[in-house]
């Protein structure tokens, strides 16, 4: 069991409810207490999920001929989706964005920060920690503005490159994917850092010390002791940041709008454009069903990893 009593990540409770606690009409009483949450979750969470499965198979639209009479169209949305080169591009962009910003960027940088900070003195640690956390606390839309300025061809990044006589370029147009990946790493790394700081606290000092006495170098200690001990946290963090990155809309939408062309058009951006710019809600819903299914699979993986006892 964890040593933390307050958890940002859901954790099973230690205490079991008392059997027969105020026995009698507990069933009704419990239902009454839970009624408001049931109603809210049902109307605004589970009904939309069910609607996704229904509307994904219709030609629902806000304008044009089909807006008057919504029809069941079977798998037509999916057929045109898989035939659409833009859809394939956006799947590819989503995977690239996921791998570089979440799996490689946030995971590795977060872990590196946690490991390097592990045995530094308190003041130094908190200064670096605060700088990294600043990116996390900043709202997504402001992160987009900050990087819009940072990567412009008169911006801070080109100014720094200028010190090394590297010519200024408009990063958002020339390397749009790199730009959104960097912005998301800046925004998201603190979460992984905090997760790994907590996880490293659970690595027994004695094992590390005896490994050192046995002549294990620092990389051997890292790969043979530390990483195997925290592998549960690595896996869980991977699923969580994958889910967060998969649903990322605001940062990309306000930084590049999915462009130029469709160079940064991930699935959420593509979904938004189909549903709300082209008013093809049925088709947009079919895309969100794809997102939802990936999310459902990842959520199941997440639950398996937590190995809940309730």
């Amino acid at each position, binding site marked *: 069991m964890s040593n933390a009593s307050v958890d940002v990540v859901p954790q099973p409770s230690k205490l079991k409810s008392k059997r027969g606690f105020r026995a009698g009409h507990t069933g009704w009483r419990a239902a009454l207490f839970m009624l408001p949450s049931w109603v809210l979750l049902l109307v605004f969470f589970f009904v939309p999920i069910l609607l996704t499965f229904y509307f994904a198979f219709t030609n629902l639209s806000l304008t044009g001929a089909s807006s008057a009479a919504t029809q069941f169209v079977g798998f037509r949305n999916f057929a045109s989706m898989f035939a659409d080169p833009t859809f394939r591009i956006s799947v590819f962009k989503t995977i690239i964005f996921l791998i570089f910003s979440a799996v490689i960027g946030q995971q590795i940088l977060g872990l590196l920060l946690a490991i390097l900070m592990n045995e530094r003195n308190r003041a130094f640690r908190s200064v670096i920690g605060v700088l*990294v956390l600043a990116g996390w606390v900043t709202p997504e839309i402001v992160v987009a503005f900050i990087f819009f300025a940072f990567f412009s061809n008169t911006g801070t990044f080109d100014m720094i490159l200028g010190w090394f006589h590297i010519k200024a370029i408009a990063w958002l147009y020339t390397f749009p994917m790199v730009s959104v990946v960097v912005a998301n790493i800046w925004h998201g790394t603190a979460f992984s850092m905090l997760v790994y700081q907590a996880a490293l606290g659970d690595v027994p000092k004695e094992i590390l010390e005896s490994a050192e006495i046995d002549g294990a170098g620092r990389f051997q200690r890292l790969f043979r002791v530390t990483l195997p001990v925290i592998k549960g946290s690595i*896996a869980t963090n991977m699923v969580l940041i994958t889910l967060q990155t998969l649903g990322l*809309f605001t940062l990309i939408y306000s930084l590049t709008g999915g462009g130029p062309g469709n160079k940064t058009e991930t699935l959420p951006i593509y979904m938004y454009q189909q549903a709300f710019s082209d008013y093809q809600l049925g088709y947009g819903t079919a895309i969100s069903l794809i997102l939802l299914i990936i999310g459902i699979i990842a959520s199941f993986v997440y639950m398996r990893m937590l190995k*809940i006892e309730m």
Partner: protein
Amino acid sequence: MRINRLTTDKVLAHVILVLIGIAFVVPLLWMIFASFQPNATLSLEISKHWSLSNFGSILADPANQRAFLNGILLSIGQSIIVVVVAGLAAYPLSRYQLKYKRPFMYVILFSTSLPITAVMVPVYELFVFMHMTDSLFWTMMFLSASGLPYAIWIMKNFMDSVPVELEEAAWTDGASTLTSLRSVVAPLMIPGIFTVGIFTFAGSWGNFFVPFILIQTPAKLPASVTIFQFFGQYGSVEYGQLAAFSMLYTIPAVLLYIFGQRYMSRGFSFGGATKG
């Protein structure tokens, strides 16, 4: 030899950390400096003329005042609903032996990790059919529902650590379940209530996508969407004002984080729950 290697290790670790720290702070500098310069560009300039005029123009605009007010109403409303509804739901989950507890908690845990983005199109459809679009109230209700699963988890865990004996004492004195929940359990759950409240408020304050989709009338939009529209309209000219607007919009999030840190600092451990 050994001491030498230890010191080089230490120096190297410090150097890398300082470089990463600098890399994280550099993008922020533009926003800070530009917000104090009336004629700011996209370049990082440290001018000698500091001025608060950008902040003045943003705050003086009634449309922006309205946007901040809408954002505060939306976030406070959502936080109160989430704390009360999740607190009520957590009580039987923590105290009673229920047949459906296990499946219910699984559904809750499952819902915590689903990306909201994936349901926004059907949510919009639902809002259109039920004539709920363009309403701050219904947007608040949807946001509350989306924050509930996580809040119920946290609340249940906090409630589990409040001893049952205290409540039993209250009942002996004739208190009803609701009274004991309010006057015995709630005061002991202050850290849990703050954690849930602060998380909910921060999430709501920073949320752009949901109000962007569900609200259309400019006068009803919260600051997150107004700042985006400001960027679209004046963003390419008034960079100083954009930076000032961003600062003003970010400050509540920073303050909440500082205030909430002592509740959150013990968190972030997957601990024994994960035996991968």
